[in-house]
């Protein structure tokens, strides 16, 4: 459905997007994940034809976006990071306008009603957009992207500024869209991608850092459980005794030396097992008191770092 090959976008000498390639099939929901300035929005703007690229190619269905812009744009519904709304129009007028703008030919009233029902803005149709709350503005923005039943729907941070309830609703909406559309969404909320997407593309500094199925990412997250333990005693002896344990896959000591409060150790277990008991027994046996212990759950940064580390390792092996 959508094919991006060796996409490069340069601003002067700076690369905003550097050699990005991916292919997205029909009905797939793909999440773009990455820190600010990673190039997510730039890639989306290029796919939708708002920006042009320096080199590479971007094909929607069979239409190249720069060669056949009109045909390609007909297949895409786009919600930019800021919903493109006219405050002086009512929701109904605005959607009528978008309907005409996209040159749709089917029954207008029925189609707009359907879109309003899907996005739950039926009651808001006669309100001025100026008077809508942020959440409703976002929904009108999504409705706008759905008009004309485009095959590809691109949503740039669709849940920013929504309250938790609205977030869940929008996620459910996106999941239901995936049944007969190809959906690309960008976000920096990990749980959102996990809840909604089939596949995740992680971007960093204009490059693709990882392109994985969601199950694989979840596996990576739950595969390790990390403990942060403060133990008083000789650093080297403790380090050796912990790494000698069978259930420990990785251990790292903090920089603080022999402080009365204990030294911080970061410990990862094998296969995500709970090893708090083993650590306690070990320390009790060695007479090195535990001053504090907490479980650290993997954050987006950890997953991100893990994935990028893994890729670097793979590359190293290939060489």
């Amino acid at each position, binding site marked *: 459905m959508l094919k991006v090959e060796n996409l490069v976008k340069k*601003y002067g000498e700076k690369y905003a997007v550097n050699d990005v390639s991916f292919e997205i099939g029909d009905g797939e929901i793909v999440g773009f994940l990455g820190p600010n300035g990673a190039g997510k929005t730039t890639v989306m*703007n290029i796919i*939708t*034809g*708002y*920006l*042009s690229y320096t080199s590479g190619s971007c094909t929607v269905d069979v239409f190249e976006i720069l060669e056949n*812009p*009109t*045909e390609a*744009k*007909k297949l*895409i519904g*786009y919600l*930019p990071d*800021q919903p*493109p*709304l*006219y*405050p*002086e*129009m009512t929701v109904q*007028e605005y959607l009528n*306008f*978008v309907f*005409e*703008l*996209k*040159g749709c030919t089917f029954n207008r009233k029925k189609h707009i009603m359907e879109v309003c029902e899907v996005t739950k803005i039926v009651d808001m149709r006669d309100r001025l957009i100026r008077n809508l709350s942020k959440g409703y503005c976002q929904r009108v923005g999504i409705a*706008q992207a759905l008009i004309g039943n485009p095959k590809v729907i691109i949503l740039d941070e669709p849940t920013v500024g929504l309250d938790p309830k609205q977030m869940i609703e929008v996620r459910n909406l996106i999941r239901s869209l995936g049944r007969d559309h190809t959906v690309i969404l960008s976000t920096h909320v990990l749980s959102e991608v996990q809840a909604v997407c089939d596949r995740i593309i992680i971007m960093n500094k204009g490059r693709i850092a990882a392109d994985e199925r969601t199950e694989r990412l979840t596996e990576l997250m739950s595969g390790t459980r990390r403990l942060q333990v403060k133990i008083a005693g000789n650093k080297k002896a403790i380090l050796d005794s912990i790494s000698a344990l069978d259930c420990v896959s990785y251990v790292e000591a903090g920089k603080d030396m022999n402080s009365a409060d204990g030294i911080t150790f970061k410990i990862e277990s094998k296969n995500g097992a709970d090893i708090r008991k083993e650590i306690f027994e070990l320390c009790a046996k060695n007479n090195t008191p535990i001053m504090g212990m907490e479980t650290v759950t993997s954050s987006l940064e950890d997953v991100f770092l893990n994935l990028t580390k893994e890729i670097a390792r793979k590359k190293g092996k290939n060489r």
Partner: protein
Amino acid sequence: MIAIYKRELYSFFTTPMGYVYIAMFWAASSFAFCMTTLLAGMDSSISSYFMLELLIIALMTPLLTMKSFSEERKLKTEQLLLTSPVSLPAFVGAKFLASYTMFVITFLVSCLNLPIMFAYLSENNLYQYNAAIALGSCIALLLVGAAFIALGLLISALTENQMVSAVGTLTASAVLLGASLANSYINFAPLRMVLSWISIYSRFANFNKGYFDIAALIYYASFAFVCMFVTVRIYEKRRWA
């Protein structure tokens, strides 16, 4: 393209801008009309009315064009228009036509003074006004309006601040309008020729004297075309930047 045109026209009337434009235009041109014809006594002249009308058009046009592109850019609605299946020339053309429609209707209504005056005067035969001069000037002003609007759109595309856009348009219009007024201070013939060539005022003076100057009409129309072409190029360039 029709969708953008309709929305643009509609937006003139959902914001005060359209009403302000129409009211100010009519008030100013009616005042000018009275002062130059009905109340001017022996000095009354239809030509000086049209000279003032030219000024009024130049002063009022920024009201129509100041927000055309700058507002879209500020609200980011530009992204919707540029990612929809509408070509850039159609996008710019629709914006132009919407502002131009506003101008033409407002201007033509303000011209209703003229037939009434001519009908009234032919009965009483107080002064001799030339209807042909009036008609020629009206046609010229319709094209002058197109030139000013296209210029305003071009400047509006350069900034996302409406005030900058309005002031910029006023300044540029003033330069175009009055380029030849500087001639009396310039002692260099080629420069004088260039200035009167680009001046909208000196070209319009021909119509005032009763000479239907087709070259001037072509100048106004091509000026409008060039401005719109440059606007399209600005958008094209921004995509590639």
